[in-house]
Every structure is written in structure tokens, then in C-alpha cells.
């Protein structure tokens, strides 16, 4: 019998990947894990506390509030931006000089850095010098995002809609453009109403890109930090303190490294879970269309 030749060289080939992943993900994450099970009173002295911070976090009203605020914000954003984006995409011209004009003006908000967007709206909404704030004030509307939680929410939502609806528009428009003319012609022959064309042709054909749009907008809005930080700093009170803002307050403001690390991990797991859910849904939809034979 000939002894089977084994060759372990392949391990060296994967080594670079192990190193890159270790330095980019595993080691930084482990330092956070390390903090999350310890407490410190400064002076670089740490004490083992076990699952204490996690237990605190789960029962913390502050965390619950931030989490609910975050969910509410993402929900509102999706409910506004997805239908609005689809509506704008439907209204956009399909040919002629209007196409590049619309596409470029749609893409402009996406090109602006996030903290610049925040600054723009922060100034825009100020009652003393901002165009929006001042105009509203002179119309007699009591609008002040630094004092009124509702005004703060409205400002941030309108800002996000202004900033990100374009993304949904561009995706939906791409989906619409890929529908062959024959579908519209057949619909005319079949005597379909405008609504039926939307319901049975345009919406099903946009399904995939809309799922991507929903996924991207959900993840992005769930992690929003820069803009509310620039505009309201999480206030008034805690009314616009979303999860990431809360996290920074805790870690950098209060220097509570342990609880902040625990919160980071939970935040990370929540996002991971949501990613998994979206990914599963999306691949299932993909499977379904593949089964169609086309």
C-alpha cells in the first residue's frame, strides 16, 4: 500500500486572509468584547464584571428608548422615501433632454458629504438666520428645532428625505427602464388602466430593485449619526438621541467604556440579525424568479 501523500502547504495560502480578517475585524471586535466584561475607574485598572453590563443594558430604559426611537425613525423614513421615490421615478421622462437633467439633479444630494448636509439643514432651519426657519417664523408658525421635539424630528426627517429619496428614485428608475416596451403595448391592447399597468407590470418588475432600496435605506437610517448630531446633537432633551448618538454619548461623553462596549455589541448583533433577515428574503425572491425558467 502506498501511503497517502499529504501536503499542508495550502494553509500558507490562506494565511494572508486570516491575518487581514484578524486585524480588520476580529481583533478590534475582541477589544470591544474585552471592555464589555470589565469595569474601570481610570488609571488603566480593570475589574472583571461578567455579564453585568449586558444585564444592565437589557433592563435600561435609556437603551429601550433609543432603540424604539431608532425603529420609529427608520420606519418613517421607509414609509416616506420608498413610495415617494417610486412616484418620482414614474414621473420622470423616459427619453429626450429631460433624462440627463433629471438624473443629474437627482444625484446631486447624494454627492454631498453627510456632515455638510447636516450643516446645511442646521443653518437652513435656524429661526434667526435660516431661510426655512425665518420664513416659517414670519408666517407665524412656531417652529424651533432646538426647543420643540416635534420640530426636531420633522427637520431630521425632511432632511433625510431630501438627502436619500434620490437613491430610491435612481434605483426605481433603473428598474422601470428595464421593462421592455412590449409590456406597455400589450397592456394597451388588453385595455389595462393606468393603475393596472402600475400594479401588474411596473411594480412586479421593480420588485428586486425596490428590495435593494429598502435594504439600503433601512440599514443606513438605522445607523444614522452625523446629521442628527450636527443638527440637534440628540436634543432637545433626548428626543432625537438615536442609538449611535446614545452610544457615542456613553463612550466618549461619559467615558463608560464597559456599558458602551456592551451596547456596541448588542447594536452590532441587531444589525447583523437584520442583515440576515433581509439577505434571506432577497435570496428567496431570487430563487423564485429563477424557478420561472427565465
Amino acid at each position: 500500500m502506498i501511503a497517502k501523500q499529504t501536503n499542508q502547504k495550502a494553509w500558507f495560502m490562506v494565511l494572508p486572509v486570516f491575518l487581514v480578517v484578524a486585524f480588520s475585524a476580529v481583533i478590534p471586535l475582541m477589544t470591544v468584547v474585552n471592555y464589555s466584561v470589565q469595569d474601570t475607574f481610570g488609571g488603566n485598572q480593570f475589574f472583571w464584571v461578567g455579564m453585568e453590563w449586558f444585564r444592565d443594558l437589557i433592563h435600561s430604559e435609556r437603551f429601550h428608548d433609543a432603540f424604539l426611537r431608532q425603529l420609529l425613525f427608520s420606519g418613517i423614513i421607509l414609509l416616506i422615501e420608498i413610495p415617494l421615490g417610486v412616484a418620482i421615478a414614474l414621473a420622470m421622462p423616459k427619453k429626450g433632454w429631460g433624462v440627463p437633467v433629471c438624473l443629474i439633479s437627482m444625484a446631486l444630494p447624494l454627492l454631498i458629504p453627510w456632515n455638510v448636509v447636516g450643516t446645511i439643514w442646521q443653518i437652513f432651519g435656524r429661526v434667526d438666520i435660516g431661510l426655512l426657519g425665518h420664513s416659517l417664523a414670519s408666517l407665524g408658525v412656531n417652529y424651533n428645532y432646538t426647543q420643540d421635539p416635534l420640530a426636531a424630528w420633522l427637520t431630521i426627517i425632511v432632511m433625510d428625505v431630501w438627502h436619500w429619496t434620490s437613491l430610491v428614485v435612481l434605483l426605481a428608475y433603473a428598474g422601470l427602464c428595464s421593462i421592455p416596451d412590449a409590456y406597455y403595448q400589450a397592456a394597451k391592447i388588453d385595455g389595462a388602466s393606468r393603475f393596472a399597468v402600475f400594479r401588474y407590470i411596473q411594480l412586479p418588475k421593480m420588485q428586486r430593485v425596490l428590495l435593494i432600496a429598502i435594504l439600503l435605506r433601512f440599514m443606513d437610517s438605522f445607523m444614522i449619526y452625523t446629521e442628527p448630531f450636527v443638527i440637534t446633537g440628540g436634543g432637545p432633551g433626548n428626543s432625537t438621541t438615536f442609538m449611535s448618538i446614545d452610544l457615542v454619548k456613553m463612550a466618549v461623553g461619559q467615558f463608560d467604556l464597559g456599558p458602551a462596549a456592551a451596547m456596541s455589541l448588542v447594536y452590532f448583533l441587531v444589525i447583523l440579525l437584520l442583515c440576515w433577515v433581509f439577505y434571506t428574503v432577497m435570496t428567496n425572491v431570487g430563487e423564485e424568479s429563477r424557478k420561472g425558467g427565465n
Partner: protein
Amino acid sequence: MATITLQEIAHSYTGASTNPDDYALKKLNLTWRDGGAYALLGPSGCGKTTLLNIISGLLIPTDGRVLFNDQDITRLPTEQRNIAQIFQFPVIYDTMTVFDNLAFPLKNRGRSRKEIEPRVIALAKMLGLEKDLGTRAQHLTADAKQKISLGRGLIRQSVNAILFDEPLTVIDPQLKWELRSQLKYLHKQFGFTMIYVTHDQTEALTFAEQVIVMYEGEIVQVGTPEELFDRPAHTFVGYFIGSPGMNIIPCLLQGNQAVVDGHRIDLGQHYPDQPASAKTELGVRPEHLRLGPADEGGLPVRVVKVNDIGRHRIVRVALEGRELNVVVPEQSEIGGERAALYFNPDHTNIYLNDHLLTGERQ
């Protein structure tokens, strides 16, 4: 149900123009009899689909009028024309079931469920879709999808016409034959006016009572399949119909004879003399030529190639460097390199600038 008349129809996709080359469809007049089965035959890009879309209203012609009976409907929107049209590639509503797909044109016109249901079931049976009625259309094969498209075109009983735009392109040959016979059967049973666009001559000739041959935006001949075969009105029809197509060779006319490279061919008819600038050609179907042993009369030709295609053989012969196809029976002997070629005067056509020229019988 209506007689469809096209008056002076012309269409240019770039708008009205003085340059005739801009026109995808050049000025044409045509009447489609109510209940007729027509085929529009021509190569890709000859304007067949344009013509069809003008009838269904998906396109408004640059010039001319479309009449249904005596009513001018040139600018009437598609939905109000009561026309069914089936496209080359399957168009289905992905999210609906097969049943809902078939019922869609009726539902949109406000028919009741009671009226729709038996009709859909009967049609599904005819198309072989009855087992799939409850499945979502998205999951079916391309064949089945095209059957659904066909079904949506056939579901309404009172349409003015059903237009088929190469509907069987994506369907495999076996099923193609079956579906085409079903269409013919439907035509007999319900008497729809059917206009069938195709670039496949077999499809056109088997389907239609009248074939309209188009070439570069113009109608070159309207006729029954026999007429198209025996008396092609244009050299293009000669080439395009028949397999292999008509032999077309340049010739000179001298009274009742054609002169091809010094060889005289009797035509049985007297043709007027043509100016030297005119392009005169002789057209003869391979089926109407005969080969005989060399040196016993006839025109001396050299045999270039023999192709056996089953029922008969196609012999390619050279007459002074001009090659012609001759169809000979399976059993006939082709002896050696040289042979004699015989023309049948009754089936030898003369073309002046590509158009058929009729002579005087003697």
C-alpha cells in the same frame, strides 16, 4: 368585426420628411376583408411590424388614414380600437395566475365573472393550459408563456382583428405546427380577421389565404400562395419564396426570345423592345427547369454540384459562368459534367427593373 382599409399610409420614425429613405413604410393602400386570413411576409426590417402597429394604434402613421368599415380611426387610441395583438416575445403578467392572465383583457372591459370563467377554461383547454390555470404565470416555461400571450389575444370574441407579430418564434417546431393548426381552426370557427406577420415563408403560405409580401417598406405583391409561386410580381418575391428561390439572370429581349450570353430562349410571348439602359432579367423557378443529356439540343451547361435533399435533388449548373439551380426528381441520372438545360416558356417570367413584365401571347 370590420373591414380594415389603409389609405395612403406612410410612416417615418423621425417625423415627416422629404427624403423617401427616412420612411420605414412607403405610401401604401390596402384593404383587409372582414374575416380574411392574411400573412405579412418579408425580411426583418421591411416594415411589417410598423404596419401592424399602425393598425393596432400603437403607432400613429406620419401620413394617411386607417379606416375600420368607413370610420376614420387613425388617431383613436389602441384601447378603443378593439384589436388583439400578440407579440414576438411572451408578455405575461408575472404576479397573476394563468387564469387571471387570460381573464385580464375581459376584466378590464368590465365583463362579469360568470361570463369570463367558462371562456377562460375553454380557451385554456384548447391551448393545453388547463392544468396550469391556478399557478403563477412566472413559473412557467417560455412555451407556456407564449401560449398565455396567444390566449390573451384570442379571449375576446368580438375583436375587429387579431394581429400576430411573429408569435411562434420562441416556440419549438413540433408545437409550432400544432398551434398554427389551432389558429387556422379558430379562424374557420369564429371568422376573426387575422393578420399574421412572419419572415418564414412556410408559415405564411400555410396560414394565409392572401399573402402580402413586403420589401424595404413597400408592398411588392399581394396574392394567394400559388400566385406568389407561379407569377412573382417582383424579383424579390421570386428570391424570397421557394426553396431554393427563383433563378434570376440578366438577359436581352428580342421579340419572343430572351438572349442570355448569346443563347436564345423561347418565351412563348412577345415583349416590346426595351431601351438599352433598362435592366431586363429572366426569372425561372428551379422546379420549372429540366435537364437532359448533353448534345441533344437545349442549352449546354456544366454541372457544378448536386445536393440530395430527400424527395428530390438540387443540381447547380453553370451556363457560361452564370449559376442556376435546377430541381430534378430523385431517380434521374445526372450523367457526367455536361448536360443540356430546357426552359418551359409558360413558366419563364421576364422582369423589367425588378418588376414583372407581361408580354403578348401569340
